């Protein structure tokens, strides 16, 4: 189904394909647990083109390809690459797609991954474009939720923090809207989710916007916390007015359901206190770890024979 397909937006993955990814992710996790050596991607090369800093996304994609027996080539720092010499992204992509079998790209401009997919002769996976989308983060977020609750339908999900610029949130809200869920969006007024994302939420989803976390804390099954991203603000006064608005500590977690789950795409700064890490409801490190088997599954399904 996903064979040879580029994944730029979460809408490029059907719900059926999503569950197929989850099924293969379980298999991949089994192989990791058993320390089984996989060779399905032997002889295949992945290019990772990160025009913006990345730790988890880049390393988990590279780890995934290595665990599947494939190889990875990476662009050096963008500042030292041909982009700095004025080469267009289209030209870079034409070249890199002749060097490799699959491309993973992160870029500061919105729509860069869609452009890359147009010019590439091999599948392109979006590792985050501007404040646009981050579909593989969404896949691992949903896998983490699904794995824990055995279903996504029926859940109450609160999403907290920077909903305006946070691309992980944009992809997540769009994907969740396919399910029978209640979504609470909690943010300072100036960081509300953009209308262009809200307009894409299906009518069947109950969506509400809040500024007070206490309105949703005791009721939610999943609390998805995001960082307020300093690098996305052009106006530092605006950033200073919202930084530190929310900071989850143990007393907040105590108000939550016993089987609730706290997620965060990481890195965190001060929006979740380190003391919360010891609570069994904190699942963000497991969520980050799921990045490898989920991306192994995705690569296998795209490049599989």
């Amino acid at each position, binding site marked *: 189904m996903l064979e040879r397909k580029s994944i730029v937006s979460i809408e490029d993955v059907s719900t059926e394909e999503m569950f197929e990814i989850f099924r293969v992710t379980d298999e991949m996790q089994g192989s990791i647990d058993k320390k089984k050596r996989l060779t399905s991607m032997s002889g295949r090369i992945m290019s990772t083109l990160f025009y913006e800093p990345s730790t988890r996304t880049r390393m988990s994609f590279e780890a995934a390809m290595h665990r599947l027996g494939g190889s990875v080539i990476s662009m050096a720092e963008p500042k030292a690459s041909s982009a700095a010499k004025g080469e267009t992204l289209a030209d870079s992509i034409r070249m890199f797609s002749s060097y490799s079998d699959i491309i993973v790209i992160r870029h500061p401009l*919105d729509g860069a991954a*869609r452009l890359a997919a147009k010019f590439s002769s091999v599948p392109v996976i979006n590792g985050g474009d501007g404040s646009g989308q981050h579909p593989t983060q969404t896949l691992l977020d949903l896998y983490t939720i699904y794995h824990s609750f055995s279903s996504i339908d029926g859940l109450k999900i609160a999403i907290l923090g920077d909903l305006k610029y946070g691309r992980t949130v944009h992809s997540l809200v769009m994907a969740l809207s396919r399910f029978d869920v209640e979504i609470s969006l909690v943010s300072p007024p100036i960081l509300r989710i953009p209308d262009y994302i809200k307009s894409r939420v299906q009518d069947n989803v109950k969506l509400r916007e809040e500024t007070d976390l206490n309105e949703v804390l005791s009721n939610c099954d999943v609390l998805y916390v995001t960082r307020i991203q300093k690098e996305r603000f052009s106006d530092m006064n605006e950033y200073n007015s919202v930084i530190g608005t929310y900071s989850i500590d143990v007393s907040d977690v105590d108000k939550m359901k016993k089987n609730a789950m706290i997620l965060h795409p990481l890195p965190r700064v001060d929006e979740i206190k380190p003391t919360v890490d010891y609570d069994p409801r904190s699942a963000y490190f497991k969520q980050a770890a799921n990045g490898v088997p989920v991306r192994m599954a995705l690569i296998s399904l795209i490049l599989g024979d």
Partner: protein
Amino acid sequence: MERTLRISKIREGIVIDHIPGGKSLKVLSVLNIGEKSGYTVSVAMFVQSNRMKTKDVLKIESRFLEKSELDRIALIAPDATISVIKNYEISEKFTVEIPKRILGILKCNNQNCITNGREPIRPEFELLSRSPLVIRCIFCERNMGESEIHSSL
């Protein structure tokens, strides 16, 4: 009462009717008809209309329209009718239509969109809704409404 023509007939050119009241100057602007174009243009603004309360009408002599110009007009005046005049007679009459794919005629208003750089691509949008007018950039996936579209044309 004797019926009179507000603007006299033209020999050759186009008549653009059913432009929303007040939008005719914007239509002239997207057709690049300004102070130096030299075309003879008649403009009737805020004419009473049964269908649209008030409308504007343009008569432009010795000027015909390309497909991309019709698409631009459709984004400003989605109900506009175009009459092509030859030898004082209407040789062709049709209504403009907003295309489902809008290619290369306007820029994305998201300044962070890759299409606003120097990449070798034409901006491309899909039509989401005709009324109210909403289009989406196929690259950055941002929606643009009527006022944003008009300021981008």
